């Protein structure tokens, strides 16, 4: 039986030339990278929502970036992505951004629901939303 994850046959079906760029699901990329039988010559590109523009935005003022618009699971996916590729700078940016936003989230939960705070809370990704609901003591 043909191997489900046989990249050669996937590529063969798509008739890809060297240098082609294709979108594949993350799980498949992970399978290919981790495949015990040798390597498929393939580079993984960093998704745009972890690209320079977003990184600069997060570095400049993390709390104003609208994460759900970029990726609803911005941080969760980040942890998976960072297991696949080595990018210490991205890890650092995500860590700092998460911390800065967490503090802001706490303050907002504290101050109650004015329109300003609703606007901010709408910019939270899923993980941040989970944290917020656990912040019972300060609400």
């Amino acid at each position: 039986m043909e191997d489900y994850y046989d990249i050669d046959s996937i590529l063969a079906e798509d008739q890809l030339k060297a240098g082609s760029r294709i979108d594949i699901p993350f799980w498949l990329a992970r399978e290919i990278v981790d495949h015990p039988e040798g390597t498929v010559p393939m580079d993984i590109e960093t998704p745009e929502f972890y690209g320079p523009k977003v990184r600069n935005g997060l570095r400049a003022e993390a709390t104003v970036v609208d994460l759900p618009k970029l990726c609803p699971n911005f941080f969760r996916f980040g942890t998976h992505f960072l297991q696949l590729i080595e990018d210490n700078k991205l890890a650092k940016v995500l860590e700092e951004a998460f911390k800065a936003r967490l503090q802001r989230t706490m303050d907002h939960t504290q101050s109650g629901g004015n329109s300003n705070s609703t606007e901010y809370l709408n910019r939270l990704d899923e993980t941040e939303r989970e944290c917020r609901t656990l912040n019972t003591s300060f609400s």
Partner: protein
Amino acid sequence: MALPRHLKNGLTPLEIEFLAENELIEIAASIDSKQNLELLGGTLPPLKPLQMSKVPLWMAISLKKKQKCNIVVPKWMTIDSLQKSLKDEQEQEVFSALPYHYMETAQLLLENACDDIPSADAVRTLLKDLREARQSKARKGVEALGLTYIQMDHIGLMEINEIRPFFTKAFYELQKLRPAGDANDVYGAPEPYRDGSASLSSSMLDSSRQ
């Protein structure tokens, strides 16, 4: 389910109160127990009328309810001492050195032995101020998140329980954002368990239906 879901994250406020009741406190008993109190948790010398004894808080409260003792307010809970703690709390970055169970103990004493506490209202107000000052300090702990540890000396158990869900979740998520150095994986992927009798026989199924 052997334990309800809500009990799985930390302790409940009632359980924390229960633990605080194990702390020793000084009382002046008005009864004579005549003999040692041989408790499972240790032996206490006899209670004598008008003699100071150190007993667990639960016992003090039990006797107080029967009007068999007066409770001596712990030193840290006097007005002078609380005022000093509040000052420390406002001036220093770390938590002031209040007892681990200060909140629960104070609560229990104010509830059950109010007449033994001089200026109980002032004590109550000071405790409230202290609590607020400490809460904002605990909130600042978020700044320390993301390191491999957070140090919070002198935080009370009740205070820990309040911040626990948020802090453990945030800490956990942040750890995951760090580049993986997880070579020291203790478990690895789990193996299925084989007890040699895993296959299902129809007779077993039948008997389980009866």
